[in-house]
């Protein structure tokens, strides 16, 4: 029983898939971030429904973390042959562990940066409720936060890209 269980958990494919799962967790950050921004946006719309388009743009900004997570998860799945190709490849424990590690940056940074970016987007939505002409500046502040999600994406990608399977 024990041995079967161990075989199930500690094998390369499982670890690699866990890596993909961790990467996809970045969506948590995006979901919370977009939620925060959405609350602020709805408040602004109650005063001035014409700003819907502008607030929607700002609300969409924290959504990228989830996309980055999806991207890495997808690349991992392609790498181990789960998607397309000729079926699952033979992955060693070590390779699986490497792939697992490569999913962590984008997943972890995505969660926190998504939330932080959501707050910053919400503040920018407040900004355009008073000064709609300053939309561009309002978009730059959340983009400053996103930089770190982009960097994490890059690290995840380079790590994954370097692993030979």
């Amino acid at each position: 029983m024990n041995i079967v269980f161990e075989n199930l958990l500690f094998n390369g494919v499982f670890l690699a898939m866990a890596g993909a799962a961790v990467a996809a967790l970045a969506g948590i950050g995006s979901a919370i971030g977009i939620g925060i921004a959405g609350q602020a946006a709805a408040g602004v719309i109650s005063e001035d429904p014409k700003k819907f388009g502008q607030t929607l743009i700002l609300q969409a900004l924290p959504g990228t973390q989830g996309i980055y997570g999806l991207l890495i998860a997808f690349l991992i799945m392609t790498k181990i042959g789960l998607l397309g190709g000729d079926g699952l490849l033979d992955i060693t424990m070590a390779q699986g562990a490497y792939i697992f590690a490569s999913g962590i940056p984008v997943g972890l940074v995505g969660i926190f940066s998504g939330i932080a970016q959501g707050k910053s987007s919400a503040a920018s939505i407040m900004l355009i409720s008073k000064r709609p002409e300053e939309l561009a500046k309002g978009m730059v502040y959340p983009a400053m936060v996103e930089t770190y999600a982009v960097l994490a994406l890059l690290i995840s990608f380079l790590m994954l890209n370097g692993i030979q399977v």
Partner: protein
Amino acid sequence: MKKLSVIGLVSNREELMEKLMTLGVVEITDQEDKLSDSQWHEMVARDSDEQTVAEFESQISRVSQALSVLEKYGTGKKPLLHTKKPITLREFQKALERKQQIEEKVAHINSLSARHAELTNSINKTQSLKLSLEPWIEYDVPLEEKETSTADIILGVVPSTVDALQFINELEEKVPESMAKLLKSDAEQHYIYVVCLKEKRDDADDVFRTYGFSKVHFGDMKGTVKENISALEKKVEELTAEKVQIEESIRGREGDSEDLELLYDKLVILRDKAAIRQNLLVTKKTFYMSGWLPAKAADKVSSLLEEVGCYYQIEDPEKGEETPVLLLNGGFSTPFEAITKLYALPDSRSIDATPFFSLSYAIFFGMMLGDAAYGVVLAVITGLVLKKYKLEGMKYQLIKMFFFCGISTAFWGAMFGGWFGDLVAVVGKTFFNADVSIPPIWFSPLDDPMKLLLFCFLLGGIHLFIGMGLNGWLSIKDGRPLDALFDVGLWYLLLISVTLLLVGIVPTVAKWMAIIGAVGIVLTGGRHKRGLGKVIGGFGSLYGITGYLSDVLSYSRLLALGLASSVIASVVNNMGSFGGPGIKGVILMAVAFIIGHTYNFAINGLGSFVHSCRLQYVEFFGKFYVSGGEAFQPFGENTKYVDILREEN
């Protein structure tokens, strides 16, 4: 910008203003500061015509109210983009010969809308009256029967917190010569009617008080509650019918909106012409004005002033004097002024950044969106919009800018081999079992990301160096060549040598260059500080190298976002291919294609726009840009609906 001062005869004033307005290139400044100067104050007074301005203002507000009514109830489809309608001067004047008639139309539309508001109001009132009657619907005694010769009939409510039955019991117990009946209860109150002998009324009132029973009055309503309610319902119906009728007749007036728009623009022109007199100074027979005009327009303005017969002076601003800012750029850079304006206009004593970043903006955008097909789509859509609509101002610039960005995206996409991601390969494999793909012209970033990463850093380095160079150039222009040497030259030396060391070319030369640069920065970095600050400032300044490091690393987003859009595109294609060959597979592919690529295009297009802006605003502008200028606002025809064409003579 040139400074203009004019003195002329009051009798020529109207003519001059009329012509300046048509020309629309002179900003006429407010003379507040001259009026507070005692020397000026003795001689001149502010010209003004507030009464005329106010008269036009009220006319404008009437017309705009009528226009908004037409827009609200009209069925006319609004065009996607608002453009001004071209109209010749003659047509414009001819249309306005009917000013009287148009004004009557305005009055008519406004009276319709006033009646509409009145109707809405009385419908609301009637309905709330009806609502207040509804709980009494079972009370079938006519409302005008408030008493008999011996008894009082009392209608009233107690709050829902009170037990109604207890109230009735107590009433009938304490005042046996009475009867009460509970008609209805709702969340707020119980509706009760009471009949009691007049002589026992005082006792009943005591019970009323204990239970918080309050009387309800129906004024002079006649008939039963039921009759009243149906009468009110009928009234609402009638009012609603009239309201619909009025809405229809407003809709029938929709054809007038064109005339109204003409009148609106005419009134705005007249108001502006009257309002500008605020900015003139007058004596009994002469007037004085001053303002700004772009250097290019100097000839035209001076010939105009000669023609009218004014004394004038056109001169350069004094050194360091703040002037209004008008951005003037070449054909390619002009659209990118939008990005500069979205940040903030440059200070009039500094420089316009637009020509220096327009190319890099397009490159960055193209690399981040990075798909040739997306680029073609973007360029075609914006190209069509530009062709179909005669846009102006910010809208025109942004659309034109996206047109250039689309071309750049198509270029980079082709370089990296992305055409809707790997659509061709996936479709080929899924449906035709063929191994086809469009090969990249340069290389595919997925195969060699490090190569593209280094290329991004290289682009970033060049971009930053241009920014620093502009900073140095501004210092030199300002007469501070040493600042340029210390703050830019030494950094150039250090950064280039560090790069050389990293790459491993001519290491010995690079080593000495780095040492000279670093020592130089430590020695000069604190030169504006005192005492110990000089030393600390120098090292602090050298520590700034971390800033350059993070600046350069920031350009890695070019790679990351480019990868994001191409990988998401291939995820979409992959999902589309899950249906396999056959008709179901084709349908799935089509659905995935439309939804997936639209989404990817939108979200990554937005990302590319925002991040290109960030690279310019934070990394590039941070090096040299001084903002804070006031926009040049020439006195001209600020029309909203029409564009008045004049034959050139």
